[in-house]
């Protein structure tokens, strides 16, 4: 693979190497008015498209009659499991994600950018597709069971293990991107100083590096936790009927029982929990920011034996964990299974391109048929609009949040709420609040932006917070113009964070299914909607086409992520 370590070095060099004295470009001393105007667009946006519909539907459905002890007990029971699985999932995600973040931040190896991009793909895959991938690998007929335990397959689908593994699969990229990004730009002189003073590498990690990473780790932890807390598809499809989270219960109450008061009660519980976690987070995180430096990447090839073992074993783990389930989809999209029907086990594979050619044929003459290129185009247009909108709204917010005053401290947790809002509830709120507007295709990127915004803000905020003011002052003292200071000091650090944020927004939008199925018109489906259409009817051709369409979705995302990372905005270092 291509190497990318020949990063441009930043033009500003600072001699002293102590911590402290870091500030955002928007210090709290700036007027409330100015900061308010930075927050306003995003607040207006969330106010109109998030809080307003949510309040409308909650006001319409909430009803004191649901407050029976039986209902509350049930809600409590579901809440307990929701918290339990989210906590476990988050811990496991860090167990894999943190070493992976270290790997990507500190070491260079062949195929690095491709592997990085691959770890981001799960994030956008619709749950139906991930479930199919895991099934092909670990299901009752998966090749693991067929090769290792043909007589008594080990159950996977329908277990807590399946839920946890799927959550780790989905969210490891959050840790890699947020923690890894911070680690890449951690001022290496701090660690070097500790070493010079005689600390061994364990002690440097424990007493210098880890404390410095607290902010990004908490940010990533909160995102992962909230994502798992509001988990829906994974619980439904991989966990099975034995498991129920708040989000699943809301779906059942609202859409199956049409019991909106109960659904509203559960939504309120879910929202309150999200708010509590976000408030706790913002309390601890405001004090932590990472001193970083616009230095060239410190990533290098592994040298000592220990490093080589670390890199090799992690590479093996990551590639088998991410590539195998992902690979099973393209394989299945090209393989015709000539099963000896009725024979459990034995089956033959034949290669075929039929599923792909069939995608281009409107066999039923249906008015809603969509060629794959058009579905991909719909998805890309929505994703591009989501990236643009969420960056435009998110950047000013992240800038002010980076050096929060009292106003920001209050607003900060509110901005995270979209992650914990039930998609079903919000969808119903859209219907009550916007009515005729629902026919507009622009609601899709708007809905996607609501989901993407917390990620964009959290990806940008730590980076902005850690731009050292001294660098700016030094540059200004040396005679650099205002723009030049920004261009040479802020921009190199910002551009990487912007790319990470854009990747999040892009993948969130490409893989989103719930809002797309409610808001797109049937003649304008996105890729995930098109996939689910094929999967909703029997027949080998439908199944094969679903796999082919999923493969196209994966490729589109992979190319998109690689392109975004290749963009390497001018002046940016290694990302």
């Amino acid at each position, binding site marked *: 693979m291509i190497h990318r370590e020949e990063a441009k070095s930043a033009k500003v060099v600072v001699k002293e190497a102590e911590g402290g004295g870091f500030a955002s470009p928007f210090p709290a001393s700036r007027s409330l008015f100015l900061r308010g105007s930075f927050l306003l667009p995003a607040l207006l946006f969330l106010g109109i498209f998030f809080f307003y519909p949510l309040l409308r539907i909650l006001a319409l459905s909430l009803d004191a009659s649901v407050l029976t002890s039986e209902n509350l007990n049930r809600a409590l029971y579901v809440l307990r499991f929701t918290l339990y699985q989210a906590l476990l999932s988050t811990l496991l995600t860090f167990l894999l994600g943190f070493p992976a973040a270290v790997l990507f931040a500190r070491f260079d190896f062949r195929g690095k950018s491709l592997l990085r991009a691959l770890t981001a793909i799960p994030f956008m895959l619709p749950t139906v597709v991930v479930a199919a991938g895991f099934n092909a690998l670990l299901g009752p007929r998966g090749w693991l069971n067929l090769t290792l335990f043909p007589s008594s397959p080990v159950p996977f689908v*329908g277990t807590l293990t399946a839920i946890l593994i799927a959550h780790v699969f989905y969210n490891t990229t959050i840790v890699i991107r947020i923690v890894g990004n911070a680690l890449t730009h951690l001022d290496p002189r701090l660690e070097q100083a500790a070493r010079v003073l005689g600390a061994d590498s364990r002690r440097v990690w424990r007493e210098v590096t880890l404390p410095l990473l607290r902010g990004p780790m908490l940010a990533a932890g909160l995102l992962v936790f909230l994502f798992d807390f509001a988990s829906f598809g994974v619980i439904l499809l991989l966990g099975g009927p034995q498991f129920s989270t708040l989000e699943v219960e809301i779906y059942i109450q609202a859409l199956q029982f049409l019991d909106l008061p109960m659904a509203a009660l559960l939504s309120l519980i879910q929202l309150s929990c999200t708010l509590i976690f976000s408030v706790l987070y913002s309390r601890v995180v405001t004090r932590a920011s990472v001193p970083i430096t616009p230095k060239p990447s410190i990533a290098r090839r592994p040298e000592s034996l220990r490093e080589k073992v670390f890199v090799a074993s992690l590479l093996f783990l990551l590639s088998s964990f991410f590539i195998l389930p992902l690979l099973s989809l393209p394989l299945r999209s090209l393989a015709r299974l000539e099963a000896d029907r009725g024979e459990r086990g034995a089956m033959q594979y034949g290669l075929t391109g039929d599923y792909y050619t069939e995608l281009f044929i409107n066999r039923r003459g249906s008015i809603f048929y969509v060629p794959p290129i058009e579905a991909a185009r719909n998805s*890309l247009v929505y994703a591009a609009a989501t990236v643009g909108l969420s960056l435009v709204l998110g950047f000013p917010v992240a800038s002010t949040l980076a050096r929060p005053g009292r106003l920001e401290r209050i607003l900060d947790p509110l901005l995270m709420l979209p992650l914990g809002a039930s998609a079903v509830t919000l969808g119903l709120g859209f219907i009550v609040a916007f009515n005729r507007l629902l026919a507009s295709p622009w609601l899709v990127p708007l809905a996607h932006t609501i989901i993407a915004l917390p990620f964009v803000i959290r990806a940008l905020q730590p980076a902005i917070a850690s731009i050292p003011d001294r660098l700016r002052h030094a540059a200004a003292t040396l005679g650099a113009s205002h723009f030049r200071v920004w261009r040479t000091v802020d921009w190199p650090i910002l551009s990487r964070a912007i790319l990470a944020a854009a990747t999040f927004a892009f993948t969130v939008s490409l893989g989103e299914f719930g809002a797309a199925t409610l808001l797109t*018109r049937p003649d304008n489906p996105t890729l995930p909607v098109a996939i689910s259409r094929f999967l909703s009817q029997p027949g080998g051709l439908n199944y094969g086409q679903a796999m082919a369409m999923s493969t196209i979705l994966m490729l589109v995302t992979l190319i998109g992520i690689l392109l975004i990372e290749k963009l390497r905005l001018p002046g940016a270092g290694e990302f």
Partner: protein
Amino acid sequence: MKRILLLALVLLAACAPQTPTLEAVVVPDATPTVAAAAPVSTPATLTVMTHDSFAISESVLAAFEQANNIDVTFLAGGDTGSALNKAILSKDAPLADVFYGVDNTFLSRALEAGIFEPYESPMLANVSAEFRLDPQNRALPVDYGDVCINYDKAFFAKNDIPIPTTLGDLIRPEYYGLLAVENPATSSPGLAFLLATVAHFGPENYIGYWKELRANGLVVVNDWETAYYTNFSASSGHGPQPMVVSYATSPAAEVIYADHPLDEAPTASILGPDTCFRQIEFVGILAGTGNRAAAEKFVDFMLSLPFQEDVPLQMFVLPVDEQAILPDSFYQFIEFPSQPATLSPDDIAANRERWIEEWTQAVLR
């Protein structure tokens, strides 16, 4: 770098989504001679809200639009439950003129909510009374389908196990671990099958039957896609269970959408008394529409032969008009239950939550 940016811009420009209003724009007819020959008036626009499974042939719809000078726009509303919620929540300012897709398990809720205006379509004359569940004709039947247990023919032939013929057979030891069903709380065929057992054993005894099914290795999953593609042995997923709750029409779909030519369906349905549950889907004119005339025409159209005969291959359900001719494959590969289970919509509406709750306690906890 610049090139990529440029490329992205070009792509963006090329991909700008169509504005939703475009289709309402009518090109004014400039040539008076043509106008005199065939007076072209502005087509009426009609909005139809449906669930995700709705489909129609381009040619059939185009014929309707031309003949009546109506432009039809479809709004998707998610699955049946979401679509109905959408209609109910927006009933004060309806999003559409016509709503299609409420079935007999949700019918009473839709009627209670008052989302429909009555319309006694003349086309109802061709529809058998068994489908006309709303005497006031607020909801008019369009199509029906039977939810049945599909089985893997080859599995039973190869292992020399007799094919079960009744619900009672399924609790016998030779069928241990062979049946996959969907959770009635999350899946429409799952609910239909639960209702079949309620209809067959009665509301007092059905739960006892489910406890025995559970003891006999019943597999429960949340959705039809998983049940069919992950658990069912005769589907492309080649799962472990040779019996699954699906539709009576699924065997025909297996042939029509096979990935290699088949002379015979690999699956068939168990057709004993009450083993299948009949789902009927309805259309209605949304109360408060400003487009009543066009809406009536569309409802008539859905009950007319061109649409009724289009329904089987588009949605794999059956037309309510008995005169509609089914595609050959339907006669060839599908056997229909002679005695499907039914329950009155009122009965379902009154007890649905209780039955699902009881079922959950007995089967999952």
